[in-house]
């Protein structure tokens, strides 16, 4: 890749109407890359009139729909549930649909680039396969022995609460791709896979905790974690990711979970 260059888009919309006085002018600085056209990465500035209460996703849509249809990103639900639109916004991993413009200082150019550590396929779209492979490797499903009960398995409210935090994961990859260890070593399972292992290790109904712990005891497992807390800061669901990883480490040492 060559050094990124800065271009100015010519498609900036007209100056504000008088009835648009709640709108502000801001600059979206987006990292563009399309290997079908060129191997070069470019940074393109788009000047937009937006309501500061709108989302970063709204700004990206405005670019795509009104200025440049080739801008490519994934998105679906647009309210922080589906996990499609994790990206690096002003240097921090966030969901574009859950980040309001007013909350990220729209007076300066807002930089948007793909999440790090996964191969960029086009613009903000990365190859998610290695991420999902790490997820699949931790056996992310309930494993039980013996005969199934006819009714539900019992679980106390307290036992249910024990793993509540890690059930919130939407597999957006914001945590894993904020982790410096993952950036440097793509083999590392990464925070999201460990979170999803935690969700089962600490589920009182599950009977394969030992197996999952052995998987995470691997050279590329939990011991690679350096406790930088990037993952916890990045999680759009507010999961205490680093704490979950620490709990898995402790379970490995004490074999109690």
């Amino acid at each position: 890749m060559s050094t990124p260059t800065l271009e100015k888009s010519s498609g900036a919309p007209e100056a504000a109407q008088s009835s648009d006085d709640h709108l502000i002018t801001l600059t979206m600085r987006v990292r563009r890359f399309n290997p079908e056209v060129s191997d070069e990465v470019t940074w393109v500035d788009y000047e937009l009139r937006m309501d500061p209460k709108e989302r970063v996703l709204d700004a990206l849509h405005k670019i795509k729909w009104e200025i440049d249809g080739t801008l490519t990103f994934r998105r679906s639900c647009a309210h922080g549930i589906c996990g499609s639109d994790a990206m690096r916004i002003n240097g921090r991993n966030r969901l574009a649909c859950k980040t309001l413009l007013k909350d990220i200082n729209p007076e300066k150019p807002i930089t948007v680039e793909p999440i790090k550590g996964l191969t960029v396929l086009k613009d903000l779209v990365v190859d998610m396969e290695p991420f999902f492979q790490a997820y699949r490797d931790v056996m992310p499903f309930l494993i039980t022995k013996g005969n199934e009960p006819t009714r539900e398995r019992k679980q106390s409210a307290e036992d249910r609460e024990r793993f509540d935090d890690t059930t919130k994961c939407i597999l957006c990859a914001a945590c894993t791709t904020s982790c410096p260890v993952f950036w440097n070593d793509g083999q590392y399972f990464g925070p999201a896979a460990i979170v999803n292992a935690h969700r089962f290790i600490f589920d009182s109904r599950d009977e394969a905790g030992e197996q999952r712990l052995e998987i995470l005891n691997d050279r590329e497992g939990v011991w690679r974690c350096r406790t930088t807390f990037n993952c916890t800061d990045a999680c759009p669901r507010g999961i205490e990711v680093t704490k979950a990883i620490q709990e898995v480490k402790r379970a490995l040492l004490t074999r109690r979970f």
Partner: protein
Amino acid sequence: MQIHKYDTVIVGAGGAGMRAAIEATKRSRTAVLTKLYPTRSHTGAAQGGMAAALANVEEDNWEWHTFDTVKGGDYLVDQDAAEILAKEAIDAVLDLEKMGLPFNRTPEGNIDQRRFGGHTRSHGEAAVRRACYAADRTGHMILQTLYQNCVKEGVEFFNEFYVLDLLLNEVDGVKKTAGVVAYELATGEIHVFQAKAVIFASGGTGKFFKVTSNAHTLTGDGQAVAYRRGLPLEDMEFFQFHPTGIWRMGILLTEGARGEGGILRNKDGERFMEKYAPVMKDLASRDVVSRAIYTEIREGRGCGPEGDHVFLDLTHLPPEQLDAKLPDITEFARTYLGIEPYTDPIPIQPTAHYAMGGIPTNVMGEVLLDNTTVVPGLYAAGEVACVSVHGANRLGTNSLLDINVFGRRSGIAAAEYASANDYVELPEDPASVVEEMVESLRNSTGTERVTEIRKALQETMDANAMVFRTEATLKQAVSDIAELKERYKNVSVQDKGKRFNTDLLEAVELGNLLDLAEVLAVSALARKESRGGHYREDYPTRDDVNFMRHTMAYREVAADGTVNIRLDYKPVVQTRYQPMERKY
């Protein structure tokens, strides 16, 4: 072009598709083709719960659930299907628990249940706790649990493969399923999947409305593909408007908020639902509550400077209860509105939420070619389908149930069909329709933009085909849509590439939305009565004599190439329950 061969192909990886995949993979060689990565489906946005008469917290039984479903659907429900839904609900919930779903629990450690709109004991006497839930993330937990079990079963996914055509071929005068054609988003390559059985589970079509709880990607892809191949669409005029969407944004705030005790208030602070539904109040069925909200707004009792919304008041509920039972929706209010629900009411308005209609199926998920004949090897389940268990209005928590019950049924039925039957020969040049569609969009030099046509479509649908409809508004919608379809012929995309061309994707999606919006408006225009989610101000009462029947809309191409919609009707299956006036 690549050709693949599978026994069973499932289109869509949301709740219904993955529930079907778990069954089909055990019984046949199965591929799941999905426009989005599996856990991106809008099933994950469902919040409040999944209905089942477990009777874990109070007396309940599946017969009451059947009755509520039939009544909630304003008697347009096929009662044999509703009975299956309610009966199999119990095992559907228990199956999910066994797959690992982390339901909220009672003090005894059983699955906890809460109240939801329209679910009652003893045929309407009072609200019953029937919704099994996991905080206000029940859909998220179902989607994750089903994906986890797909990983466990080794389900084969083709991610970001967008199905654009259904292949049927005539064998001895019978139209049979031969496969599907998909567009691979990453490469722009076209793939033919030859299959003995195909299950459509591609979800809803809410994006033809502006204010909607639906994801950007819910563009009726499966319905449109089937319709263009001459299959009927059933009851498309019945669309549900959920009472509590976030004002202007449409983001869903679960009915569970009212199940937990939340109250709707107008600008005078009045609990207005007492006037419209004296027994069930805020927990009347969704169509009733949505009309009540708009009646308040129209009569000048709306909130805010423009009087265009009402409030969902949770301020009297203890913060601990909100944190434990409604954590996500309270966070939405904080994130998107800057409002603290502990102390401030949340501005809401009805939001386009759910298509009751869709591809007609029987209770095995088999797709109908007309009122009685099935298409061998073709199945549909979930929001894309119309069984019909929701009739004219779906009860809250019955869709998470629908995807599990009928996803499972169609997965089993399709795989069994695939085991017992041979491949049908592919039609000649199977990918030609898709190749032509994609190439003409990519190469078009037209002057129309997708954005503008889509915006105009959403505006006419919101203005003319939403909660209140009349002959005049529907005629307006029909003529607007016809004009937009003309403009669409001249649409072009800016991205001419092959790699991840989402510009092209959005153009295809818009074509689907236009076709389906037209079916909705034409079907609604012909239904001169009010029933469930379809409310005609010029025909404000239900007319069982003339309209106790399902609409079946067919796309017909005349000899000169003009396309028309032909409407036919199908009888409603009635077993136990005679139609009564619907009161809550």
